[in-house]
């Protein structure tokens, strides 16, 4: 045979089998004949030009034939869908739920985790935190300026290191003084992030030199708000804390500070440079960020910083005693918790998709059983098995595409609701349906099509289909089909159990977290933001004292505030002060070294409004002033650590904070422990002194109220500004909202997984219902005969329910194994709950059994109502 014909035969193989069988030989023959004829009569060129177009033609024919076959399959599938529209609707809705929830979780992952940080080459950015050398697992904390300025000289892994701290200056000079959210930053801060200014320049080393002129850069939003977006803003001056600052630049609108919660769009308005000669080496108040040199990993940088920290410990044995550094990639620090939570949600979604596919597979298996005769006939008249399987997959694809489309609609709705649910996920408001989400949905839909089509297709490959012709079709699917369907239900129940167990553990954890006694009665308690007395106008302790007394008196006269007071460090505010030079009189001074003692100063009202639980002695009262003898109230943890045997009342301690020299004080009271930093912290040793006996220029107003925050804020602002017109307005926050915010991470996990688990349970019960209902339908004849022979309704029903319990038992066993494996993964999210909490496991198994039995109840009832006469007559 000529090569040109062989090639044609080869191309013909691209056509569908049916076409080849019917017309292949003739097409080849015709091709050969024309080819020969052209060559003979018109020459080789004409022959080759014919062959070339015939090659293209046969390929086009192949494509069109395939398209026609798929088109007719799709039409057929749509007709089938319409025929059994109830089960089709169940299938489509089931898939829509799975795909919709899957796409939603993925869109959250895209927004929260896959959106790059808004900085140059964000993968190279890290945080550097202090940590105690002897506590490798401790949370990182703030760094000190002298240390962070030494690091660039000593470390090799970083191209730039920068630090920042909160700064809330008061803009004066305008009609109403205004507190501006701001930052002090070191000279290299903007270089680390790679910020390009919108106007002018950013801050650099020159601005941080001691004695450099006062300069600031401002945010784009503040530029628009305060300067109307004027382009000549550069060079203008503003008065901040009574000092004149020159504006040198405007930051781009998209700039945000690298801080987990703040990435949700909170910006600072003003930034000034931190003079690089400042402060003591043991004053830790800076967040430090750094850019890795190309080729350096965070691990390499950690090794580098271990070495550098060792050098500095040797050089500054007192200030840097027990000080080590901790390098954390920026994305891990900011999104680590969210990543864990979303990974768990993703795993749960995989569970849901599997349950949905198994469910749908079972429904399709049932349908195939009904069509067994039709399929057998088609096989008998010569349709190839492959063709029928192809058709089944087209049916699955049609169902999956319908489900995927509806799922996308569901995702579009959920994505809109998601940010409003106030989940504790950074950047969640960025969530929307992007092209990547569409692509993911398409992939998931495709996976579902394969997932739901495989089991039905497998049954077709079995020989028994051809045997269906002999049979009347009544006993249709044999024990094997029933076994397959039962196995599917067991798998579904097991997956659902694992999901419910996971969410059950998270709910238990949330309950445990909610039950934490935070040590004070926060309902109705409010705290203002900080009042800072500028050093220029309040240079002396006496002037600060005068202000504090005046404010305390003025607040006491406010009818909306009960027991108001001033407090230097309010609970859960993240602004805590470590006591310095602490020791117990009558003991060697080393006894108290290396002990962390939290230091606080208050006026009497503050402790009353928090309603701390007094264990011994007395609270700080109005008699404790700068003129009375120094006293202190301590917490239970302090008493236990410092005076394990015997009462601390009447004991003397020496303690101080900041500029004040250590004073000797008498302990007059012990209060129960209360939380200062987070809900889950261990009790902290705290010493609380009267503010008037250790005056500090920074404090907050604390009190109880029944009026709105806004009203109270204006009343407090009025009180403050009646004493000093130059001080800015205050706002207040309610503790109740604050505490629930602290619990929101736990509730987010519980709600997220709980919702998905509930869907899983629902789908699994639907699946159980389907299988039981089907098997009751199959056994109608058996039930009818048994009824005719005198079996009572209960015997019939229990024979159905026993079957369900067997399925359920198998599902529970498999599910428990699955849960045990999965529980490890969520253990990091659990608080005071073991990942193998027996109570949760038991409750979940019980729930699952109840659900399965509930799903089986209706079919079981139907089984008892089978009319024996009708059944026997049908025979």
């Amino acid at each position: 045979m000529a090569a040109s014909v062989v090639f044609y035969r080869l191309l013909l193989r691209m056509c569908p089998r049916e076409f080849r069988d019917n017309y292949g030989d003739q097409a080849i023959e015709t091709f050969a004949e024309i080819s020969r004829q052209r060559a003979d009569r018109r020459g080789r060129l004409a022959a080759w030009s014919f062959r070339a177009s015939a090659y293209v033609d046969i390929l086009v024919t192949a494509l069109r034939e395939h398209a026609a076959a798929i088109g007719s399959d799709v039409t057929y599938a749509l007709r089938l869908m319409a025929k059994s529209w109830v089960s089709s609707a169940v299938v489509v809705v089931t898939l829509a739920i799975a795909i919709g929830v899957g796409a939603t979780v993925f869109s959250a992952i895209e927004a929260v985790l896959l959106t790059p940080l808004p900085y140059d080459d964000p993968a190279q950015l890290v945080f550097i935190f202090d940590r105690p050398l002897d506590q490798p697992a401790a949370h990182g904390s703030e760094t000190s300026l002298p240390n962070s300025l030494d690091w660039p000289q000593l470390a090799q892994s970083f191209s730039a290191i920068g630090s920042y701290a909160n700064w809330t200056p008061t803009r004066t000079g305008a009609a109403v003084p205004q507190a501006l959210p701001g930052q002090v930053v070191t000279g290299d801060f903007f270089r680390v992030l790679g910020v390009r200014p919108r106007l002018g320049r950013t801050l650099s080393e020159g601005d941080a030199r001691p004695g450099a002129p006062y300069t600031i850069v401002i945010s784009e939003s503040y530029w628009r708000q305060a300067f109307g977006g004027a382009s000549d803003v550069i060079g203008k001056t503003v008065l901040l804390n009574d000092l004149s600052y020159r504006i040198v630049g405007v930051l781009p609108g998209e700039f945000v500070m690298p801080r987990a919660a703040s990435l949700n769009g909170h910006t600072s308005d003003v930034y000034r440079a931190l003079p690089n000669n400042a402060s003591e080496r043991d004053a830790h108040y800076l967040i430090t960020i750094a850019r890795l040199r190309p080729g350096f990993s965070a691990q390499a940088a950690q090794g580098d910083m271990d070495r550098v920290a060792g050098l500095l410990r040797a050089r500054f044995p007192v200030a840097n005693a027990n000080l080590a550094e901790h390098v954390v990639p920026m994305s891990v620090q900011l999104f680590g918790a969210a990543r864990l939570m979303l990974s768990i949600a993703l795993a749960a979604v995989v569970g849901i998709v599997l349950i949905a596919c198994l469910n749908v597979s079972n429904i399709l298996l049932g349908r195939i059983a009904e069509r067994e005769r039709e399929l057998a006939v088609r096989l008998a008249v010569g349709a190839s098995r492959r063709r029928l399987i192809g058709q089944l997959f087209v049916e699955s694809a049609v169902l999956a595409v319908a489900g995927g489309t509806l799922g996308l609609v569901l995702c579009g709705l959920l994505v809109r609701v998601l940010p409003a649910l106030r989940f504790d996920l950074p950047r969640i408001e960025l969530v929307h349906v992007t092209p990547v989400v569409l692509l993911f949905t398409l992939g998931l839909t495709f996976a579902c099509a394969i997932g739901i089509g495989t089991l039905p297709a497998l049954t077709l490959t079995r020989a028994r289909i051809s045997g269906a012709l002999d049979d009347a079709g009544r006993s249709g699917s044999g024990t094997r089909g029933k076994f397959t369907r039962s196995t599917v239900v067991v798998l579904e129940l097991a997956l659902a159990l694992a999901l419910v167990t996971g969410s059950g553990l998270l709910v238990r954890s949330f309950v445990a977290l909610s039950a934490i006694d935070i040590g004070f009665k926060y309902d109705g308690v409010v705290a203002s933001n900080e009042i800072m007395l500028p050093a220029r106008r309040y240079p002396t302790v006496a002037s600060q004292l005068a202000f504090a007394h005046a404010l305390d008196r003025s607040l006491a006269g406010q009818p909306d505030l009960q027991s108001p007071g001033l407090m230097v460090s309010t609970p859960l505010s993240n602004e805590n002060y470590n006591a310095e030079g602490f020791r117990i009189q009558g003991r060697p001074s080393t006894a108290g070294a290396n002990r962390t003692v939290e230091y606080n100063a208050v006026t009497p009202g503050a402790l009353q409004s928090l309603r701390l639980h007094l264990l011994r002695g007395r609270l700080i009262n109005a008699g404790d002033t700068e003129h009375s003898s120094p006293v202190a109230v301590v917490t239970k943890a302090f008493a236990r650590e410092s005076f394990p045997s015997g009462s601390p009342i009447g004991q003397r301690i020496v303690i101080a904070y900041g500029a004040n020299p250590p004073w000797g004080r008498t302990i007059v009271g012990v209060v129960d422990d209360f939380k200062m930093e987070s809900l889950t912290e261990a009790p902290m040793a705290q010493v609380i002194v009267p503010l008037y006996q250790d005056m500090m220029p920074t404090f907050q107003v604390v009190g109880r109220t029944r009026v709105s925050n806004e009203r109270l804020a204006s009343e407090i602002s009025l009180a403050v500004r009646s004493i000093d017109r130059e001080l800015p307005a205050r706002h207040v926050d309610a503790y109740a909202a604050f505490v629930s915010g602290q619990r929101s991470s736990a509730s987010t996990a519980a709600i997220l997984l709980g919702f998905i688990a509930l869907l899983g349970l629902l789908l699994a019960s639907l699946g159980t219902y389907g299988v039981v209902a089907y098997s009751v339908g199959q056994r109608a004849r058996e039930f009818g005969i048994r009824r005719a022979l005198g079996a009572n309704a209960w015997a019939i029903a229990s024979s159905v329910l026993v079957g369900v319990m067997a399925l359920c038992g198998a599902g529970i066993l498999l599910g428990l194994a699955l849960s045990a494996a999965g529980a490890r993964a969520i253990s990091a999210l659990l608080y005071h709950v073991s990942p193998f909490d027996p109570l949760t496991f038991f409750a979940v198994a019980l729930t699952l059994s109840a659900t399965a039995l509930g799903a089986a109840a209706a079919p079981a009832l139907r089984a008892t109502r089978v009319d024996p006469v009708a059944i026997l007559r049908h025979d």
Partner: protein
Amino acid sequence: MKLSTAAFFVLVALAQGKRHGYAIIKDVEALTGGEVVLLPGTLYRLINQLFVDKWIVEVPGGANDDPRRRYYRLSANGRKALSSEVARLEDMVKVARKGRLLVGGA
């Protein structure tokens, strides 16, 4: 139902009597003066469609025919479809002529 050009010519070729595939190609080529040359893939796809639509039927070859070939002829349905298509085309030509006369006369 509107026929494709190729299908139309295949029906015309088969209107003359039973033909095998290659003969159809040759007939169509001759009928159109070499304008329409059907390629084998297209031809058998058309034959399959016309067969499924029951416009043509397969007939056994005669004693003088090549036994390896398969022969087709028009069915009654096919003949009806072809004449209605011819009528449709005639109407269209009439309309076009009328239109051109009117335009030309203006």
